[in-house]
């Protein structure tokens, strides 16, 4: 549904504003990487712009720290509608490993409405491109339901190691 709306709202080139709200640079250089010759997103009409006022999409990377929280909100408010926000990486998804420290407010959703999340630490450039293309309805979803994947875990090392499984609640739930 959302993909359909996105296709309607963003029928032409997508201009992307990259907002680092307190990331470690890992996601940021992967975002820059998608511009370079191997990945070259400009062939899809995706272009990185310097100002949120020119942007259709905000790529938010990093946990939102306490001082950047109002700044991210202001950058989001400066974007003209319709607009989308992508959370790139684990930190933007939920705050990452420092989600509750004294200077981190949490994931991107604490500051602005995040429409899509691209997981990874950092996500591969392919994953970022796939995420954006998926949101725009350029490609089909390739994900399988989570429980199917977990049950058919192909590495028998884990099957042998019962102690490891017992420590992981998810396996206990799935096996019963």
């Amino acid at each position: 549904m959302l993909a359909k709306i996105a296709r309607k709202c963003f029928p032409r080139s997508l201009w992307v504003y990259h907002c680092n709200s307190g990331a470690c640079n890992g996601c940021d250089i992967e975002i820059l990487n998608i511009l370079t010759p191997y990945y070259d997103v400009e062939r899809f009409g995706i272009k990185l712009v310097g100002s949120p006022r020119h942007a259709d999409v905000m790529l938010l990377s990093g946990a939102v720290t306490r001082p950047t929280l109002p700044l991210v909100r202001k950058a989001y408010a400066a974007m003209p509608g319709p607009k989308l926000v992508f959370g790139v990486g684990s930190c933007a998804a939920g705050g990452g490993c420092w989600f509750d420290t004294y200077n981190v407010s949490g994931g991107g959703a604490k500051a602005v409405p995040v429409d899509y999340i691209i997981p990874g630490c950092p996500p591969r450039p392919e994953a970022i491109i796939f995420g954006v293309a998926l949101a725009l309805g350029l490609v089909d979803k390739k994900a399988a339901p989570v429980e199917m994947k977990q049950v058919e875990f192909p590495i028998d090392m884990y099957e042998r190691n019962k102690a490891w499984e017992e420590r992981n609640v998810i396996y206990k739930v799935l096996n019963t």
Partner: protein
Amino acid sequence: MDALTRIETELRSRLGPAVQGLSSPQPGRLFVDVERRALRPAAKALIDLGARYMVGIGWDEIARNGTIGLAHTFAFDADHVAVVLRAAAPAGDPSFESITPDIPSAGWSEREYQDLLGLTFTGHPKPKRLVLADDWPAGVYPLRKEVPYNLEPPAAEDVAYRLDEAPPGTTVVPIGPFHLSLHEPEHFAVYVDGETIKGCDYRGFMTHRGIEKLCQTQVSYNEVPFVAERICGICGSVHACCYSQAVEAAAGLKISRRAEYIRTIMLEIERLHSHLLWLGIAGHLIGFDTVFMQAWRVREKVMWLAERITGNRKTYGMIVIGGVRRDITPEIRAGIEDVLAALEKEVLELKRAIIGDSAIHRRTKGVGYLSKEEAVRWSLVGPVARARGLRLDVRKDHPYAAYDDMAFDVPVADSGDVWGTLVVRVLEIFESISILRQALAGMPAGPLLIEAPEALPPLRHGLSMVEAPRGESVHYVITGEENRPERWRVRAPTYPNLQAVPQMLLDNQFADFPIILGQIDPCFSCTDRVAVIDAGSGRRRILGRTELEALSRGPEAGRSRS
């Protein structure tokens, strides 16, 4: 007389009984305990002996003995010695005499502990907030033990950072927090007279994530390296390696030679990708996007190589306390050699294209100049220092991992400008390739991980330095009792280099600001790891470029000439 004895004699003769203890638990490390009042004279004595200031470390010992500790670390690079000056102040009166008037690069360390531990430094020339936001409540010091790691005070309105007094007749141009030339949220206020930069005030630490506090309270020894890798997405394994070495030094662990070789390989692979990344960014900052595209195209091979070795393009997760987690198998070794051969060819072409390009010459030569004397005064490190004629390289000066077995040059330029840093970095790519080849050829057999004892001895101090792509990273660890460090201090190379940027900017053109800042390869996330920031000035200005109107702060200071 060896260096340790010389330093000891000098300190004892200058300070007398104020030197309370002196020990050298690890080779090349000297821990000196001095009285609080003797900290400044002791620091001055070390600087007079030719030491380079590294970093200050503060820690909370109120629960144990009612004091707050403070250490200043110094490096004697030619003598391969690092000295730690330790002092303590009672919690009721946590004040020290500031050493910043003697050593300008100590300014940030002292301001940091003023924010985080509530220490006061008498005589500090600029005792403003550095790490914590301006709306952070007074009296809450996050690094003190009684403050929980997840205490997040509510934001307060109308608390703004007071910029430095602008030189008369200048206009303030705000850059950041979100700006094209900064890929991270930081705020610079640049004072310009027409197009010429006359000064700069910096309010950063917006990516302070409280990592040190988190790791001192929540995770265990061997989880810290993975958090450490996420301090910075570019030089992650430098931090993991440096932390592991500091713990190993403190606990007296000796890791296997093979693990040291594998660490060397990982660090050099990281240097390769980081230098190519910088080259691209530098090209981008001076408007030469072809360099950006080409350098990153070449770099992609290194990323694929890293993925093949470690399973991830970044944040490798290779280095833990006691060794490494994955082996370099013969098949991977052949793969590395292929990549190196291809890379060498391509970087050579890139080098030829850059070295002869007149546009790059004109944009970088004489830009961001800093003399050798100033570089010493500001304790610059890494390629930024080497471009100022200082032959500083931790790999040579304080060998770690397997660098004592490697034969390599330290490229030095004496031009003192952006061009010098560019040349140094390009030449270092070739040295890295050579080190990688030597490491692959000379790698001995052996275990990857050693068995560490069940519990590491508590309250031992360990200091470790690693040459990151940007310069020297310093980690200081005090081992703790609950299977986690009692105190872990990270100092990234951008920390000292950034302090000298206002000096480098002076009298340059405003249009050169991005590349002058870019020459230090700034990595704010490393620098800020523990800290917080300035909502005030940021709230007012989000878009530097689009809101270039003067930031007028009063009729006399805000006169615009442009």
